[in-house]
């Protein structure tokens, strides 16, 4: 399975990684290994959504309070909030 430089650049962009030379070398072989699944006809098979069959487990949307402990770990913070460079 050949991976073009463009595809690598695009994927790296999505993954927020810098494209590296090794990707061109290492990734195609691993993708080839994954191609094996094409030997199987799975047209009529339902994909597994959850392995033990659990569905829609919900709980009350209530904050469980240890906000200070968590915010204290942020590299940049202000007024009890995590600080971030502008997104736009």
């Amino acid at each position, binding site marked *: 399975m050949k991976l073009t430089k463009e*595809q*690598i650049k*695009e*994927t*790296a962009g*999505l*993954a*927020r*990684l*810098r494209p*590296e030379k*090794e*990707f061109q070398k*290492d*990734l195609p*072989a*691993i*993708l080839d*290994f*994954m*191609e*094996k*699944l*094409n*030997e*199987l006809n*799975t047209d009529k*098979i*339902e*994909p*597994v*959504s*959850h*392995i*033990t069959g*659990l569905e829609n*487990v*919900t*709980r009350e949307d209530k904050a469980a309070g*240890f906000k200070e*402990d*968590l915010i*204290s*770990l*942020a*590299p*940049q913070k202000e007024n009890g909030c*995590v600080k*971030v*460079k*502008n*997104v736009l």
Partner: protein
Amino acid sequence: MKLNELTIKKAHEGLANKDFSAKELLQAVLSAIDKDINAYLFVNDDLKKAKQVDEKIRNGEEIGILEGIPLAVKDNIMVKGMKCTAGSKLLENYVAPYNATVIKNMVIVGKTNLDEFAMGSSTENSAFGPAKNPCDLKRVPGGSSGGSAAAVAAHQCIAALGSDTGGSIRQPASFCGVVGLKPTYGRVSRYGLIAYGSSLDQIGPLTKTVEDAEILLKAIEGKDVKDSTSSGIKEKDISGLRIGIPKEYFVEGIASEVEQAVREVIREYEQMGAKVTEISLPHTEYALASYYIICMAEASSNLARYDGIKYGLSEKGKDLLEGYLKTRENFGKEIKRRIMLGTYVLSAGYYDAYYLKAQKVRALIKDDFVKAFKKVDVIMTPTSPTVAFKFGEKSDPVSMYLSDVYTVSVNLAGLPAISIPCQKEGLPIGLQIIGNYFQDGKIMETAKMYENQSA
């Protein structure tokens, strides 16, 4: 026998009988820890908890079976106040702000070494140097719970916790000659476990005996409201022992000494009265490809959070994007490979061909087991096709992935499985016993039959 060489059971008896104190037990374990094996990334030499247990014993109070027992915890499981690095530079100085659900009132000796973010089968992917196999320091302890397995094997803890996504408890247990159990998916809460492949991960025990694994599992299992994928399902009692041997697991690629050792154990079970039949798991050859697509896809999603914004390593860039790129450059090679591939197989245009396809193959693999368990109670296979390999031997990524061939199907299907040592001399070899859903007790009971017999 030195105190650090005791099992959980014997250590508890000794404490209850006042043969020795919890402080002495912990000190014996601490003095056994060495830099050579490098099983630990962080050692906790605080004696406070041990002294509290001794106080309880002095006051005549009864102590729980795990109270005062020095345990090692894989460094991807959060222990409040201790560093939790996941073996990565991204979390090198991260201190856990809360406990994982599995961390109860325990004496924790320290956090053990692992492949970075639990991705790997040798602990060579740790950003802090690999752990070594105590049976042969030139060989890997296996991975990703290599540090935990090495610590148990070298008596640098009484027992340990690890995590298993594609074999990461069982394979290192097999390489180091200890017991390792991956519980049924959902049996143990994943809250506080740094996520790798959320539909595959489970925390489980690495111990010196199967009995100890039973004790540790009992302490950590249970439905947890903080993990919506956990279950509180009760185990069904089944009697009799019909063992299935899948023919697809004994083909080319298995080392002759491994095949010999495993077939010998199966013969011993037959002599004990078990009924052994050959079964077929016809989609076995597709398990690795299916597993790697799914776990890489899930990993790419789970590792998106390491961006230097909320915690962990944070590199400055001229703008937000550059900050992300510079921070995430610090992932190890294997991590970057998996994030790239995971992102690729999930992206528009490729999702159906890879991820969806893999989840369909997963359904076929699960079905193979469901059909097999109509005819047998447990399935026995080797844990790994080889004994512990040497450092650097599997430098090609695909050759490393191939070493997981016997373990990944179990995670894909969500079943419980245990690895027990079955080699009397030479490098350790593990026998894997796979059970039906929530039959964790049954597989441990089966494992004890062999353990008691060869004692």
